[in-house]
Structures are given as C-alpha cells and as structure tokens.
C-alpha cells in the first residue's frame, strides 16, 4: 500500500472512530444521566470542542514534524485511553450519579456529571483523532495541489464518518453493546498505531519517505477565512438538524430517517470536498479572482435551502399521504426521506462540502497546508458545535424548522451576495457585471422573502384534518388534532359494555400527536368533561394502564404512582376518574419535553389535574429522575409509557438495571406496567421487554389490547405469585370493564424459556433494531 493510500485509510478510519465514539458516548451516559437535550448537548459539545482543539493542535504539530511518527504514537495512547473507557466508563458514570439529596438538586448535577464524564472518558481520544486530518494534509499537500489534498483527506474522513453513522447506531451498539463497541474502537486505533509506526519505519528504512522540512513561523490566516469556515460549519449543522425537523411531520424521526439525512449529507459533503478540492486548485490557479466561485456557491446553497422549504411540503405530502396506518409507514418514510433529502438538501450540501478545500486553498500562504487546514477545520467544528447547541433547543422552537432553514439560507445567500457585489467583478464588462449583481441579489432575496412570509404568517408546517395547533419544541413537533371519533369497543360485533356507546357511538376527541406521521397519538381527552368522566378515553390503551390501580395494593389511603412518560396526563386523568372516592392519588410524573405540558394545559384541560396530588418534573429524562430518587421514596404503581421518535422505547427505560432500580422503589404488592406498541402478542420488542422484566422482577405478564391489536401492556411485580388479580370490591368504573376483561381473560405469563426475548441491559439493548424490524425495516 502506497503512502497516499495509507494516509487516506487512516483519515477514513479516524473519521469512523470519532463518530463511533460519539454515538457510544451518548449511549454510555444515558443510563446514568438520561438523554435529555442538556445531557446530549454536554456530550456532543465536549466531543466537538475536543475535535476542534485536535484540528488546531494537529495543524501545529504537523508543521513541526517531519514524519507521521508523532501522530501514530499518539494513536497508541489514544487506544489505551479508549480501552480504559470501555472497561471503567460505565462505572465512572454510575459513580457520578448523585444520591442522598433531593430530586430537584440531583437533576442539575446530572448535567455536570455527563459533562465531566464525557470530558474524562472521550475528550482525549477525540482530540487525538481530530489531529489526524490537518496532520495528513500537511503530509499530502504539494505546492499547487493543496486544495486537492485537503479535499481528498476531508472526503475520505467524511466517508468514514458516514460509515460510522450507519454502523454504530444500527449495528454495533445494537449487537455487541456499548462497552464492546468502545473496546473495538480501541483495538482499531491500536492497529492503526502499530501499523502506522511500522509502515513509516519500513518506508523510512527503504528511503521512500519524504522527510518534510519543519515549518515553524507560519503567517497568520486571514480572519475572513476563519469567519467563513465558522459560517460553513454552522450552516452544515443547522441544515442537517433543520432538515430532520423539517421532514419529521411527514416521515417521523426514526433511526433510518436520521440515517438517511445524515448519510446523504455526509455523502454530499464527501463528494463535495473531493470535487471542491480539484475545483479550488483549478479556479484559484488563476489568482484570487477564483474565490468568487466559492462565494457564488454559498449564495446558491442559501437559495437552495429557501427553495427546499417552498417546494418540500408539497412533495412530501405526495410521498406520504395523511391516512397511512402507522404499521406500514416506516418503509414509506424511509424511502420518502431518502428522496426528499437527496433532492432538496443533497445538492446544497454537495456545494457546501466544497467549502473546506476552497477555504484552505484561498487562505494558504506558503507551504502551510497542514496548519491552515487545522485552524480552518477547528473553526468549522466550532461553527458546527454552535449549530448543534442552538438549532434544536433555540432556533427551531423560536422560528420553526422551516424558519430555521430559511434563516440559514438567508445568511448564506446574503453572505454570497455581499461577497459578489458589483465591485468584485471589476475585470468583467459592465453589462455582465450588472447581470451578475442582479443574480447575487436574487440569491439572498429568495430565502429573505420566504422567511418574511413565514414569520408573518407562522403557518403550521403540516396541517392535518382537524388540526387546531402546532408547536415545534426542542424535541419534536407537537400537533393538537380535534376529531369526532367513534369510541372503541373490543369488537364491533360484540358489545361487552353497551354503556360505552353513545347515541351515535362517537365523541369529539382531542389528540396530542408528537412527531407522528400516521394515525397515532401520545395523549387523548374527550372534549366534553362529562363524556370524559363517563367514557374515559373511549377504550384506548390508557385505560389498560390505569387498571393497575385496581390490583396494585396501596398500604395507605393514597395510591402512590410514578408515571414515566407523563405526556399530556391522560393516564393521570384516567386514574383520577376511576379510583374509588375513598382512595387518594399522589402522582410523580416525568416528562422530558416541557412544551408537551404547556400544550396540554392549553388544549387538554391539564390545569384541572394540577394541584397537591401531582409532582411534575419536566425537561429531565425519567432515568435520571429514577436514579436520583431518595431510597425511601416508594410507589404502589409505576407506569412506563415513554416513547422517543415515535417508534422507540428509550433504551435506558427498558433495561434490567432500570427495572431493578424501580423495584427498589416499589411498595409491597406494587406493580410495574409498561406500554409497548408493535405486533401485539408476537411483538419481538414486547417479548424482549417482558424477558427483561422477568429477569429483574421475577415474572412478567402480557396483556393484549383488544381495541388496538398492536398494543400490549406488560405487567410485573416482585411480590406476585400469580398474574394480576383485580379486586372484587374495587367497583370497577364501567369504562374499565373492557380493559378488565382483557386482563382477566387474555393475560399470559411471559415464559422466557418458551417465548424467548432478548434480555435488555444498559450495555446491550437492541430495542431500536427490534423495533425497526417490527415496523418493516
């Protein structure tokens, strides 16, 4: 293998390792600190800062080095550090969980804990990996072809990252677990280190390596280029996150939709930087005038982002109509999102991918390609970090996904237009100069006009029949839909509870949908309060969960309930409306997205549930809250109804460790109930969670939902010798009779020996993969 091929291989594998470590870091933190946006920001922030520092240091180190020895030696250290992280990372995270202090105080420490853990465990190896690209660019760059070298290294590194985006979340973490993934990365780094050192030494002995002269005292890089690098990094991240959120109302946010978006974007960036490197060398060979090409590129990207927001919704509506049933939507969403990303964002990102080589080539003074690339990559990464930190938490909630894309487009278009002002074309004839000036102004004008219309109108991203409100939060798009719905009974031909049916069998129902792309919902309330009290949720799964109050035995006069995944409070309301009058209700609810509660207050009569009986924690992951619970906090009933990105159980809320923690907070005779959506009694996800509950609690029972065949409720109790037994003197609310019937007549004990099911742990939980398989991917 030649030196160039070797360098490209190292660049690709280092790009792969960075992304694998990033995914593994988020996964490793989740059982200790959850996956709230603050924790996610802390982990990604640390990784990107380390990467930026690595780029900068790599540029400096590369300039001082004559061979690639120092880089590969550092790789050895990096491998050992990563190996240590794989062995002791989980323990370190667990050791940082605060205990013995009030829940409210503990939660803020969770953010600091995740920051500290990621800083200690992952910042050093990522810093070393970040040094790779500028170091290799320095080794590869020859005079006049710096752009090409930068483009090649950047492209291959991006392709490595692209591979990791599929490999890490969809394969490695789902099949071998977090620790082994990190350990495997350590061995890969060790292999690179040993291989690199040996290859360099052998080539040196053979006299085949060029011992480059040390290059100290480089001229400083222009601030304008640094600013441009920052802006392009910011733009890439804003477009990436904005694209996912923009498409979410149609395609959801499943793993495969994310993979499509990230995959297309990284592929476009890789191709763009490869092509851009050659283009940059060719354009800039004619002098600084060639830099105009780059500014024109920025302008076109801006206009393309604007056009995407204008045309995208219509196309997506054709690709995925309103009434597709949730079970069949994932394959359509997968292909639809691929098409939309390719058509609307691929070309723009391909052009944006040309930025790094162009910038390096434009900013280059003398033979300092490595250092120039290092500094510019560092600032690109800082821009990317800012994009990560502001897009989902700030820009999307403030401007909406469409507004965010338009703002990014406007910024890029304006930048291009300003740079391409008439004065910049002095060497052209006046007529062409005027024409180009008009084109430049148009580039900025398109997104500017669209942004103005969007902000003035603030129209919903996607309108569904009966939709009354749409709110874009930091986590998801929340949609309130109001419809006349028929109440559900087990089967049309059998009226088990005739009282459930009204005169025409329907009631006005308000649904809270999150990123749902199909006819599913997270919360529901019947619009008429009297109907709501009489018919509860009209036969939906919340009633099956609320039934737990009638077999979990409270020792006191008050039933103590922990609701994991509180959403709009539907389970809470059902419990309140169905408990006997002499039993009080004390609820601790955990909802990760505070905007959901705000919407529920405005549209789902949530205020009537608030009061002394409800302690609501929002903005925190339920795992963090459970970790932080005082040891003496006990519950008679724990109900887990948490879903993330529509289809997935948050993995950290369905593991042996999680259920063991819950068990410690379960009062004698208490029960844990988990809602699982899938293929009913044959659902692999349900089997896996049931096997996990059986491992942690001793037994698990599966109750199908006759009203919605895909849904099952899993029950487990460490004290139960048999399945759940309703109390005869509980005087079941008529609305719960259907659920009671299913519980008594259909509940099955889950036997791990016969029924199978993968036991899910904090380290290895393939729940996402099982869900994807179940939903058709």
């Amino acid at each position: 293998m030649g030196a160039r091929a070797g360098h490209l291989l190292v660049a690709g594998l280092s790009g792969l390792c960075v992304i694998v470590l990033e995914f593994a870091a988020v996964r490793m933190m989740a059982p200790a600190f959850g996956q709230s946006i603050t924790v996610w920001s802390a982990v990604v922030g640390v990784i990107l800062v380390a990467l930026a520092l690595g780029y900068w240091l790599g540029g400096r180190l590369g300039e001082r080095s004559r061979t690639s020895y120092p880089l590969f030696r550092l790789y050895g250290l990096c491998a050992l550090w990563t190996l240590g992280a794989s062995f002791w990372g989980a323990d370190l995270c667990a050791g940082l969980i605060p205990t013995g202090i009030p829940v409210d105080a503990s939660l803020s420490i969770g953010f600091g804990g995740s920051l500290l853990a990621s800083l200690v465990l992952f910042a050093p190896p990522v810093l070393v990996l970040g040094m790779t690209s500028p170091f290799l660019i320095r080794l590869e760059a020859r005079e006049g072809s710096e752009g090409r070298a930068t483009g090649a290294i950047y492209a291959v590194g991006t392709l490595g990252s692209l591979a990791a985006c599929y490999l890490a979340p969809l394969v490695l973490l789902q099949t071998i677990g977090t620790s082994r993934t990190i350990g495997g990365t350590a061995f890969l780094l060790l292999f690179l280190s040993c291989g690199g050192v040996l290859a360099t030494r052998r080539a040196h002995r053979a006299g085949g390596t060029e011992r480059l002269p040390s290059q100290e005292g480089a001229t400083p890089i222009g601030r304008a280029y640094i600013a441009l690098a920052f802006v392009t990094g910011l733009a890439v991240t804003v477009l990436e996150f904005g694209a996912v959120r923009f498409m979410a109302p149609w395609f959801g946010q499943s793993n495969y939709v994310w993979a499509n978006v990230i995959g297309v974007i990284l592929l476009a960036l890789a191709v763009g930087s490869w092509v851009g490197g050659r283009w940059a060398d060719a354009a800039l060979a004619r002098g600084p005038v060639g830099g105009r090409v780059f500014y024109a590129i920025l302008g076109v990207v801006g206009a393309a982002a604007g056009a995407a927001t204008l045309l995208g919704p219509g196309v997506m509506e054709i690709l995925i109509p309103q009434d597709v049933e949730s079970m069949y939507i994932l394959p359509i969403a997968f292909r639809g999102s691929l098409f939309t990303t390719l058509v609307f964002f691929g070309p723009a990102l391909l052009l944006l991918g040309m930025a790094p080589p162009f910038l390096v080539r434009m900013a280059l003074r003398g033979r300092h390609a490595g250092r120039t690339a290092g500094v510019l990559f560092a600032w690109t990464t800082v821009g990317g970090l800012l994009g990560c930190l502001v897009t989902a938490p700030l820009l999307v909630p403030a401007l909406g996904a469409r507004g965010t894309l338009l703002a990014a487009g406007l910024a890029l278009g304006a930048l291009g237009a300003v740079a391409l002002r008439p004065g910049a074309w002095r060497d052209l004839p006046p007529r062409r100069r005027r024409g180009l000036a008009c084109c430049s102004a148009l580039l900025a004008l398109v997104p500017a006009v669209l942004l103005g219309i969007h902000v003035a109108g603030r129209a919903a991203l996607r309108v569904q029949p009966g939709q009354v409100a749409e709110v874009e939060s930091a986590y998801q798009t929340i949609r309130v839909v109001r419809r006349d719905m028929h109440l559900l009974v087990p089967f049309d031909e059998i009226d088990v509870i005739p009282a459930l049916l009204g005169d025409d069998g329907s009631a006005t129902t308000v649904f809270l949908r999150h990123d749902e792309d199909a006819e599913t919902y997270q919360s529901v309330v019947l619009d008429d309060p009297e109907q709501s009290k009489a018919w509860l949720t009209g036969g939906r799964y919340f009633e099956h969960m609320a039934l737990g109050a009638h077999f979990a035995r409270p020792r006191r006069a008050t039933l103590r309930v922990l609701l994991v995944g509180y959403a709009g409070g539907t389970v809470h309301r059902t419990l309140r409306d169905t408990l006997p009058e002499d039993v009080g209700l004390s609820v601790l609810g955990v909802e990760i997205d505070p905007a959901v509660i705000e919407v529920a207050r405005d549209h789902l009569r949530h205020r009537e549930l608030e009061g002394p009986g409800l302690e609501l924690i929002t903005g925190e992951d339920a795992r963090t809250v459970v970790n932080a619970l005082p040891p003496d906090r006990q519950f008679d009933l724990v109900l887990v109804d948490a879903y993330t990105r529509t289809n997935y159980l948050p993995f950290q809320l369905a593991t042996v460790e999680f259920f063991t923690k819950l068990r410690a907070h379960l009062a004698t005779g208490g029960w844990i109930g988990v809602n699982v959506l899938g293929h009913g009694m044959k659902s692999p996800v349900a089997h896996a969670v049931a096997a996990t509950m059986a491992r942690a609690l001793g037994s698990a029972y599966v109750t199908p939902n006759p009203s919605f065949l895909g849904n099952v409720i899993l029950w487990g109790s460490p004290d139960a010798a048999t399945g759940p037994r309703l109390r005869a003197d509980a005087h079941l609310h008529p609305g719960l009779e259907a659920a009671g019937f299913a519980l008594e007549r259909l509940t099955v004990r889950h036997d791990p020996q016969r029924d199978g099911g993968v036991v899910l742990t904090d380290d290895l939980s393939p729940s996402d993969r099982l869900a994807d398989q179940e939903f058709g991917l």
Partner: protein
Amino acid sequence: MRRILPPLMLAGLAALCFGEPALARDLPPEVRRMAERAFLEGRLRDLDTILAGAESPADRFPLLLRDVWWRRARVPPSFETRGPGSIAPRLAWLAGKEPRGPYPASGSGGDAYPILTALVRDRQWREVRGHRGLPQQGPLEALAESLRTEGEDRAAYFAGDWTRRLMSLTYRGPPPHPDEVRMRDRAERLRLRSGRWALIALCAFLVLALGLRWAVLRKARATGAGP
C-alpha cells in the same frame, strides 16, 4: 282414621327431619347458565344479582371464586372450607395459598358450572405457560365446540374464536379486515412508488456529482491547472 294418624305423624316427622336439604333448592339450570355467561363475558358485577337467589354452597360458589381468586376482595370473605361433596375439593383449593395447584375436578354430584371450570383452567393455563407455550387446543376449545352444538353461538364465539384470535395477535395475521387489506395494498403501492423515486433521486445525485467532477477536470485541463 286413628289407624292412619300415627303413620301420618311419623311421615310428617320424617319429612321435617329429612326434608331440610330440600329447602336449599338448587338453582334452575338456566340461572346457572346465565351466571356462567356473565362470567364468560366479563360482567362480574351482574353475578350478585343473578345469584341472589342461590341457597346452596354449590350454587353460591361462583361468588366465592370471584372474590377469593378471580377478582380478589381487599378483605377476602371468610368461608367454610368444608362443604358438600360436589365442591369440597374446590373449597379446599380456594383456601390454599398462592400459587395454587391445578383447579380440581368437581366432587361427586357433577359440576354445576362447567363453563366456569373451563374459564378458571384456561386462566391458570395461560398464567403458567408462556404465550408460545399455549398449544392450539386449550381448555376452552372443547367447551366452545359443545356450546356451538347447543346453538350458543355468541358464548361459543367468546369462549373459543375470540380468545384464539386475540392470543395470536399480529398485524399480518389472517383473517384481515377488508379495510386492512385495502390499506395494506395502498401502503405497498406507496412504498414501491417512493422507492422508485428515491432510486431516481440517488441516480440523479450521482450523475450530478460525476458531472461536476467531469466539468471541473475538463476546465482544469483546459486551463492547464489540472493534473
């Protein structure tokens, strides 16, 4: 008259002595069947009304079974664990601790509530075996068949078909509802269509990238700045 008076008195005395059981009359079979169907269909509160006239321990047994095992009372009712031969083994079973053994067969005198027996055994059976441990033929199967031959189609549906259908829940399991078929076909068409579009987009993207590269190389060669 005097001659027949003593035998009449003796007969009256005998009737007083041995006629006691006759006072606790058995419920008519229709009422028992009504109670069983209420159990079958989940209307457990109706049992109090249906069995209000039950006098014998055997006839009142469904209430006891409901409150002690099927839907346990917060304070389980106290009961005499010894009873008539027909329910003696079942009273002993109810008095036992969880987990109880298999629901026993009725004692001498026959089973007053065969559907109830099948239901209890079915529940025990489900709670012992896992989902895949349940073979096709369960305790309710034979019952459903016998109900069907008796013309009790609705009860037979509950006992057999409905349960079997729900226990094998799957979105793709037969027999699908016509709406489901229509929806699935439509989804398949959409899937194929979006797949084609995605493939076209991917090809177009690659052509664009290659075209750009070709244009760049051509230009570079023309200007002499390229390789």
